[in-house]
């Protein structure tokens, strides 16, 4: 009944309550949406990194992470690693790659690139590179074909069908090179990757680098994000000290930092909005308690304890905040839903692409988007009601009854 009394008290002055509710709801909806867009951006950054290069898990020869020399290879061609990965249910797909730094040279220019030897038939199950084809085809049938980033093609001033030379240092330390015809060009969300990547067939790359059957890495994706750790753990257990197993977050800790930083930002954002609200809530409660001085005296005369009066005021504060938060979340979720096709930021495409973000950003909502505002709201509502609650009980009942 205290709860019912608190609830009805809220609506004694509907206009006043409505304004507080509107402030809370707008604050929450706005924070929710802007955080969702931020998360959408980070999410894309992570996804771009995973889908173009990282995969969920990479397995390298021991020592690769500290010193990625070409001599540190999986000499068995990654067979052991792939066998282990495939022996459990978590794996969606895996593929093998060779990766080395090199130069790409055309008739018009040259560029420093990462040369990646990929398995044309298996790579598409792991990365988006084939889907990102802009022009031409995915290697095709002929020998000695390369697929390169569109930005790189622009820099080298080559088109599909033109020839480029790829210069590398092979496994024996010799400078060597080979000619490849551009079969296709791709554009991913990462301008860095597009500017600096030449894809070759794995076998041809191995030949160019005098690697025999060895590969530098096995890349795997799990069926589901939740299964990445399980997959990695199984690989670590089975491969033991014979290979380095790394998840995407270990390979790119900065991306994880980014995610964590945004989590932190969400707390600060909500805290700032709620502190601003707390003043408004406290103000309204104070007015309402002041207006009800006599009524509170009567409640005390009837035998209500001081603590119960405080609980009543705190409940009123909590109720108005929670109703505001819930409607704010509702508006925010609806807004995120309406924007699920993404916000067009193509005017900022270059800036976004330099961080691996596509120019269309869809807001991403996460469970913590529900949790954080509710927790912060609860705390602020409690704090905001503290002063009014104390004021509500500062008169002795007789005194309160005397006041009008």
């Amino acid at each position, binding site marked *: 009944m205290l709860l019912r009394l608190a609830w009805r008290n809220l609506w004694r002055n509907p206009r*006043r309550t409505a304004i507080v509710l509107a*402030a809370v709801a707008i604050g929450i909806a706005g924070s929710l949406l802007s955080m969702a867009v931020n998360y959408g951006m980070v999410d894309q950054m992570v996804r771009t990194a995973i889908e173009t290069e990282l995969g969920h898990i990479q397995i390298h020869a021991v020592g690769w992470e500290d010193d990625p*020399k070409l001599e540190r290879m999986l000499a068995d061609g990654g067979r052991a690693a792939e066998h282990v990965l495939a022996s459990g249910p978590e794996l969606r797909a895996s593929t093998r790659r060779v990766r080395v*730094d090199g*130069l790409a040279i055309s008739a018009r*220019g040259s*560029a420093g690139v990462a040369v990646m030897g990929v398995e044309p038939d298996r790579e598409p199950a792991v990365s988006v590179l084939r889907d990102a084809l802009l022009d031409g085809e995915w290697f095709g049938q002929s020998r000695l074909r390369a697929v390169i980033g569109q930005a790189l093609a622009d820099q080298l001033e080559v088109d599909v069908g033109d020839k480029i030379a790829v210069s590398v240092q092979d496994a024996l330390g010799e*400078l060597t090179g080979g000619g490849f015809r551009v079969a296709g060009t791709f554009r991913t969300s990462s301008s860095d990757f597009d500017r600096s990547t030449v894809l070759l067939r794995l076998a041809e790359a191995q030949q160019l680098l005098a690697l025999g059957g060895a590969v530098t890495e096995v890349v795997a994706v799990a069926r589901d994000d939740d299964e990445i750790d399980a997959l990695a753990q199984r690989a670590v257990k089975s491969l033991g000290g014979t290979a380095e197993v790394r998840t995407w977050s270990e390979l790119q800790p900065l991306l994880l930092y980014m995610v964590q930083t945004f989590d932190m930002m969400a707390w600060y954002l909500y805290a700032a909005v709620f502190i601003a609200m707390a003043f408004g809530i406290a103000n309204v409660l104070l007015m309402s308690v002041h207006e009800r001085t006599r009524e509170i005296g009567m409640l005390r005369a009837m035998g209500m304890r001081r603590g119960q009066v405080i609980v009543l005021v705190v409940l009123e504060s909590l109720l108005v905040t929670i109703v505001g938060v819930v409607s704010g979340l509702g508006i925010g979720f609806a807004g995120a839903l309406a924007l699920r096709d993404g916000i067009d930021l193509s005017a*900022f495409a270059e800036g976004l692409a330099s961080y691996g973000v596509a120019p269309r950003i869809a807001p991403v909502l996460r469970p913590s988007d529900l949790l954080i505002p509710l927790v912060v709201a609860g705390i602020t509502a409690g704090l905001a009601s503290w002063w009014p609650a104390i004021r509500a009980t500062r008169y002795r009942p007789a005194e309160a009854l005397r006041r009008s």
Partner: protein
Amino acid sequence: MSELRLAWRNVGRNPRRTALTVAATVFAVLLVVDFTALTRGVHEKMIEDSVRLRSGHAMLAAPGYLAERSLDHFLELDSAMIARLDAVPEVEGWAPRVVGFALVSQDVTSQGVALLGVDPRRESSVTSLPSRVVDGRFLSADAERGAREIVLGKRLAERIGARVGDRVLVYGVAYTLESAYELFTVVGLAQLPDARLERTLAVVAMADLQDFLAFGDRVSEVALLARSADRTEPLRQALVSSLDGLVPAPMVHPWPEVMPDLEQILILDDAGLYIMLAILVVVVGFGILNTILMAVLERQRELGVMLALGLRPSAIFRVVFLESILLAGLGLVLGLGLAIPIGLWMEAHPIVMGEQLAGLSEFMGMEPVITSNLAFSTVWKSALVILVVATVASLYPALKAGRANPVDALRSL
């Protein structure tokens, strides 16, 4: 004047309510001013870092160079052009560069790099590269052509296992499209705020690079330093008119053209900040609205009496409006009184980021130190925003007060 006095008294009537509303405004002003100052500081730092690292405030290059950055587009840095560059007072410093790509290797590990050929005598007048050498030294200014000294990014050196004194093989493609390779002696390792750049930057003497690439006396670009970032536009104008008539005329690109990604990221970041601050200000605006509305509703009877006494509704409207401006103004004055010293204090005491944020700053390519920058424009724009919000928030209560019906008002209590 009596209206103002009346409004002022009304504000003082309920000190507790006024205090809470003012406190909310102070909080908003504090966040708006100091957060903008902080962001501004971060952005200027990002610009300055990038500008002082590589591009300069503006860049002189042949038409088409910026899009392709290939050796096909070059400048002839003849005495006529040098004379003109030296003659423009807006130019604080200028440094010519040759830019090529190459593989740098030591033993069996090679790494693709951006090979930057600089004039050791001029470079420090534009960028901080020479001072960023942490091990060994920068290219010597009086080394002979052919000394073939090279400075590597520290991360790059670690990657290929090179140390100061080692000789590394540089392998590239010359202007003539012939292969070129040459041994260079590592004289120094540089630490850069941008980790990506540190992994892929190698600096050699411009003359050596011109020889290596068979580029003759041509240069790829000339980096220009203005007196400060906001003097970039005057610099551009002065240069354009000074270089007018040169054939072929080089293009002058201010830094946003050289680094469009940086400018866009800054704009987006600003947008994010403004959205957050807007939410905050709207929330505080509702607080003001509620306070004024309550004050008006409480005074229905009094307002009725005033109307009955012959006060015009427009006068009542003005009083209520003034009340809300006074309320916001009070918050504004106190808020600025707090925000400005804090902002100045933050400017004097840069924040060194913790480990986690340092990682992020590395990602963003800036040093992990946040120096806030409080601009006068931030202060007056914040003040304007708060006053506009207070004005909007006062409209409804003021209209309501002006429409009070004397008879109803007198009956209502």
